[in-house]
C-alpha cells in the first residue's frame, strides 16, 4: 500500500554567520527512509521532535515533494497525482483542523461529501457508524470553534473517514487530549484497524498509543530509520529487561550478587533494591534473593517502552 525507497528531504536553512552574512546550510530532515507497508497494517511511526516524522508523512500525502528517492502510496506518486491520491487517503493532523471553524460540525461533513464526491447513501452510512462509535450526536450542531479539543478530534477523525479512504494518516492524533478522550480515540482506531479495510499510519509521542494500537513500530531519528519491527523485537534488540524490585527487612549486605541479574538501584538505606534480570527467570531470582535476605515485599516490573525509546533517542 505504501512503498518508499531511499526517500529524502533536504531543507536549505540560512544561518546567521556574521553581522550581515548568512550562510546557507542544508539540513537533511529525512535522509533515506525505505519502508514497505502492506494493506491493513497498523504502523506506529515515532521519533523525537525534529526527527523527520511529520516530514515523511507530508511526503506520503503529497504535501511536500521529496528531494530524492521514490515514494508510492496506493500505487500513485503523491505529488504529481496529488488530487487522485487525496480521494484514497484520509489525513488527520492533530494540530491543524480540517473542519470549517465557523460552521456547525454537521455542515463540515456535508461539505466534505461534495469535496470528495461521495454518493449520498455511502456518506450517510459512514457518518452513521462514526456517530455511533464516537458519540458525535451531542455536538453535531455546535460550531467547530466552540467544540472542546476532544470533541473536535472526534470530528476530525470522522471527517478523514467519510470518503472511505484506503490509508489513514494520523499525525499526533491524541496530542493534548485528556485521558478519557485519548481512550475514545484509541478504541475507535483499534476497532477501525481490526476491520482490516484501512491501513493506519500514525505518528505520536504517546507510546501508549503504539502499545495499544500498533503491532509494527518504526522508529526514526535524525531522518533515518533506527528500528522497524514489533515492540517485542525492539525490547530484545535494545536489551530492555524485566526488573525485580524488592523491599528488604534488613539492609542488603555489601558485595551481594544475584546470579543472572544486575543490581541497578539501591534506595532507602539499602532497604529497597532493584535488579535487572538478564536471562534468569523471576522465580529463580526471587528464590536466590530470599535465601540471602529476608523480604517484605516485591514486584516484577515489565520493561517500559518509554525507557527503551528514551535510550534509543539518547544513543
Amino acid at each position, binding site marked *: 500500500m505504501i512503498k518508499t525507497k531511499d526517500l529524502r528531504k533536504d*531543507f536549505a536553512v540560512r544561518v546567521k554567520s556574521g553581522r550581515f552574512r548568512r550562510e546557507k546550510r542544508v539540513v537533511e530532515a529525512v535522509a533515506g527512509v525505505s519502508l514497505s507497508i502492506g494493506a491493513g497494517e497498523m504502523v506506529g511511526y515515532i521519533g523525537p*521532535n*525534529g526527527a523527520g516524522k*511529520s*516530514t515523511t508523512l*507530508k511526503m506520503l*500525502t*503529497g*504535501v*511536500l*515533494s521529496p528531494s530524492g528517492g521514490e515514494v508510492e502510496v496506493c500505487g500513485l506518486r503523491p*505529488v504529481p497525482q*496529488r*488530487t*487522485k491520491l*487525496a*480521494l484514497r*487517503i484520509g*489525513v488527520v*493532523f*492533530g*494540530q*491543524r*483542523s*480540517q473542519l*470549517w*471553524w*465557523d*460552521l456547525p460540525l454537521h*455542515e463540515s461533513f*456535508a*461539505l466534505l461529501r*461534495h*469535496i*470528495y*464526491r461521495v454518493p449520498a447513501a455511502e456518506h450517510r452510512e459512514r457518518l452513521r457508524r462514526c456517530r455511533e462509535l464516537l458519540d458525535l450526536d451531542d455536538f453535531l450542531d455546535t*460550531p467547530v470553534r466552540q467544540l472542546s479539543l476532544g470533541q473536535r478530534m472526534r470530528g476530525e477523525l470522522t471527517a478523514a473517514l467519510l470518503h472511505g479512504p484506503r490509508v489513514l494518516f494520523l*499525525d*499526533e492524533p491524541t496530542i493534548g487530549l485528556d485521558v478519557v478522550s485519548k481512550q475514545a480515540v484509541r478504541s475507535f482506531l483499534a476497532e477501525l484497524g481490526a476491520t482490516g479495510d484501512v491501513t493506519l499510519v500514525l505518528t505520536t509521542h504517546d507510546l501508549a498509543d503504539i502499545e495499544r494500537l500498533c503491532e509494527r513500530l518504526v522508529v526514526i531519528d535524525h531522518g533515518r530509520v533506527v528500528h522497524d519491527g514489533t515492540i517485542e523485537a525492539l525490547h530484545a534488540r535494545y536489551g530492555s529487561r524485566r526488573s525485580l524490585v524488592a523491599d528488604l527487612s534488613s539492609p542488603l549486605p555489601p558485595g551481594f550478587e544475584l546470579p543472572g541479574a544486575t543490581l541497578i538501584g539501591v534506595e532507602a538505606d539499602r532497604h529497597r533494591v532493584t535488579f535487572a534480570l538478564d536471562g534468569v527467570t523471576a522465580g529463580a531470582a526471587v528464590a536466590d534473593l530470599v535465601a540471602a535476605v529476608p523480604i517484605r515485599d516485591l514486584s516484577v516490573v515489565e520493561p517500559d517502552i518509554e525507557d527503551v525509546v528514551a535510550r534509543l533517542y539518547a544513543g
Partner: protein
Amino acid sequence: MGEFRAYVALAGAQARSAFSYRVSFLIEMVVNVGATFFDVLSVLVLFRATDRIGGFALPEALLVTSLTSAGFSLADFVVGNVDRLKTYVRAGTLDAVLVRPLGVLPQLLLMDLPMRKVLRVIFGLTMLGVALGLNDIDWTPSRVVLITLAPLSCAVFMSAIFVISASLAFWWVESGEIGSAFTYGGRDFASYPITVYGPAFRGLFAYALGFAFVSYQPALALLGHADPLGLPAWAGFASPLVALGAATIAAIMWRVGIRQYRSTGS
C-alpha cells in the same frame, strides 16, 4: 462536473461562515461603501486640478483610469485573496488544502468570499461607462470587440500579477508587502496615461512588465489616437495576448512554487 459542485459548496460554506459574524460583516460593508466614495472623490479632485494629463484631455485620461479601475477591481474581487497565501505558508495551513482532492488556487480563493469588494467592481464598471460616454468614439466592429476584451484582459493581467506576487511567499516567507508594490503599484501606474512618467520608469513598468497594455494602449485604439510614444495602432489589440502571456508566467510560477512549499514543523 462534480468538482464544480464541490467549489460551489465551498463558496456557500464561506458565505455562511461570514454571516455567522453578522455585525463585522455589516461593518465591513459600510466601510467599503465609504472607501468607494473616496475613490470617486479622488478621481474628481484630480480632474479638477488640471485639464490635460500627459498630453491627454480629461475625458481621454478618464478612459485610461476607468479601464484600469474596472479590470483591477474585477481581478481583486476574484483572485485578490491570494495575497493571503503568505499567511497560510507561514502558518502551514496550506497542508490542509493540499490533502484535499481539489485545486489549490481555487480552494484558497474560496477560503474567503469578498462580497465587500463587489461594490468596487460596480464602481469601476460604472466609471468605465461614464468615460465611454464622455468620449466621442467611432464605434467600428473591431472597437466593439475591443471594449469587451479590454477590461477582461486587464482583469486577467492583474490577476496574473496578484498570483505572481503572492507566489513569492513560497520562496520567501517574509515577502511581506513586496507583492503589493506590483499589484497596487501596478494599478496606480496604469491609472494614468503612461506619457506622464519618465523614460526609465516607463520602460520598466510599461513595456518590460507590460502595464502599458492594461489600459493605455487599448484606450488609444478605442479613441483612434496615434501613440505619442510610437507604438503602432494594433498595439491596443495586443492586450489579450499580453494578458495571456502574464497568465502563463503566473501559472508556471504557481506550479513551481507549490513544489517549493516547505510546510512547517508540527
